[in-house]
């Protein structure tokens, strides 16, 4: 009995393939949507917040510590309540999201650039340079991130730029190690040897071949790292290090609310925490799916 098989031959570009594989997981799609919402909110915070929480003139202490849904003196309904200074929680969260994302992404990108350049160069140049860099990486990774950041911030003091420096110094090593491994794998491949024997310049090999092939694992590491950076910044702010009170991130907001927790005014700490959770969760969901797609060993 002959069977009728419908030949199905699909040809897709790698990008389309990644997109369609990504869309297979509803959870990842939810994460993507959440991420877009978070970034949109952060970007447009000044325009969509009901109130500017850092304009001291617009605050009224009489409105302090209102529960979610209560009305303030001027008739405004505070959807998520107010904090100890009378700030609308919704606005505070939007602005806080902005700072958190800014710090997380900036430090992530800087660390990515520094780390990958060092990593790829280490793989390409080899020799003493590679040894020194990788030794540094090992030492750096042997320390718990929070301790390194803690000490750095204790020394450097408060400020957005200082916390970015701290976060970069904690993250670069992961990128460097990943970039070097990926570059080494490529380097071992025969086409690079062939290119070398043809006399192609080193920089060309690095730019056209080693770097692009390191992209996939770097993206995966990148998503995890950015999520970590945001969480680390929040933790440090909570402990009182890093960001000044004038530009609070979500971590600082949570810290501010800590003292009110035991008296039942949960909203000052809980809601910023939820915002933080959703942000990190969104990044992780997206990053997780990317990792599954880009992992050659689990190829479906």
């Amino acid at each position, binding site marked *: *009995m*002959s*069977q*009728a*098989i*419908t*030949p*199905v*031959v*699909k040809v897709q570009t790698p990008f389309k393939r990644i997109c369609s594989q990504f869309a297979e997981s509803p959870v990842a799609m939810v994460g993507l949507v959440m991420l877009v919402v978070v970034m949109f909110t952060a970007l447009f915070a000044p325009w969509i917040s009901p109130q500017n929480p850092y304009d001291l003139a617009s605050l009224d202490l009489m409105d302090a510590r209102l529960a979610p849904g209560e009305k303030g003196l001027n008739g405004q309904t505070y959807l998520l309540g107010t904090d100890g200074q009378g700030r609308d929680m919704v606005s505070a969260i939007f602005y806080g999201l902005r700072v958190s994302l800014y710090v997380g992404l900036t430090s992530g990108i800087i660390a990515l650039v520094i780390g990958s350049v060092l990593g790829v160069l280490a793989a390409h140049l080899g020799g003493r340079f590679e040894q020194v860099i990788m030794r540094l990486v090992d030492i750096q990774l042997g320390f718990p991130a929070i301790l390194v950041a803690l000490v750095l911030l204790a020394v450097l003091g408060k400020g957005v730029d200082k916390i970015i420096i701290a976060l970069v110094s904690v993250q670069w090593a992961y990128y460097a190690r990943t970039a070097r491994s990926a570059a080494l794998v490529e380097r071992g491949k025969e086409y690079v040897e062939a290119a070398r024997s043809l006399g192609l310049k080193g920089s060309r090999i690095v730019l056209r071949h080693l770097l692009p092939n390191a992209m996939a694992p770097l993206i995966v590491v990148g998503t995890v790292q950015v999520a970590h950076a945001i969480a680390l910044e929040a933790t440090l702010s909570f402990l009182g290090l890093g960001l000044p009170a004038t530009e609070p991130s979500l971590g600082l907001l949570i810290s501010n609310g800590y003292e009110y927790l035991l008296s039942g005014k949960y909203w000052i700490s809980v809601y910023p925490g939820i915002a933080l959770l959703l942000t990190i969760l969104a990044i992780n969901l997206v990053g997780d799916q990317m990792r599954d797609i880009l992992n050659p060993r689990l190829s*479906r």
Partner: protein
Amino acid sequence: MSALLTVKGLRTEFATRDGILPAVADVSFDLKRGEVLGLVGESGSGKSVTGFSIMGLVDAPGKIASGSIVFDGQELVGADDETLRRLRGRRIAMIFQDPMMTLNPVLTVETQMIETVLAHESVRRAVARERCVEVLGKVGIASPSERLGQYPHQFSGGMRQRVAIAIAMLHKPDLIIADEPTTALDVTVQGQILYEMQQLVSQSGTALIWITHDLAVVAGLADRIAVMYAGRIVEQGPAEDVLSDPTHPYTRGLLDSVPATTTPGQRLRQIPGSTPSIMQLGAGCAFEARCSHVTAACAVMPDMVKIGSRTTRCWNPIVQQPSTASSESAA
């Protein structure tokens, strides 16, 4: 005498993103006790999956879609897990291709052999160990008692495969399925293992299905040969007949492409075209695109026809002139 193993109309499918892939489309054969069957085919022909199907080891997303496998009177398709488990290792054993990957690298050989014994018989550990030492000696491993305590990576490739064979022989099974057992080994070792398996099997009366892509390997070993192509058996019959007088164009092509049959200086013969992807097959004969005997009839999948001692899946089989010696006796 009833057959030990009867496979009828076996169809094993894999659910992939691009559709259902019938790795084994339609396979039927019988195996008598003590008989050696050479299952020959290139990669992708479905020969390994046939072996796994008999063992019940087809992993998701694959499953046996239809057909029957009767072993010693017992239907295996649809049997429950515990029934299958009791058969595996005890009455039907399997040897895999790469012994480095099949033996667990972090457990000693002793652990891996004794557990096989204890999985099917409750004997004392010491008794089980004795048996393992004995079997290891039989497959040609020197100082078996010492080597038992070692780890797989401390053995050479050929030795590891002998260990795998020993494990297969522990319970004196009725059937051994060997999936390309010599492919990963050096040529010299290949010959040794082949010879030893032949001895073992004929001494113990175990039936053997030897799966390979290399016709030459089964030439001296098999009683019967079945050639597979794209998930189906295309020719089956006594080994000598299939090898000296093939009726299917594909078998003919395989034999012709063996370098030994051409005289030096002549061009090597090869089958034109390349193996089709199973997903791209149409309703006709799978070999159609590469066949030199193709006719209009080939647009429909051929049934098996009997020619002499063989069965062939072809509308236009190669029938030898009566002047060439070929056995006319029924299989």
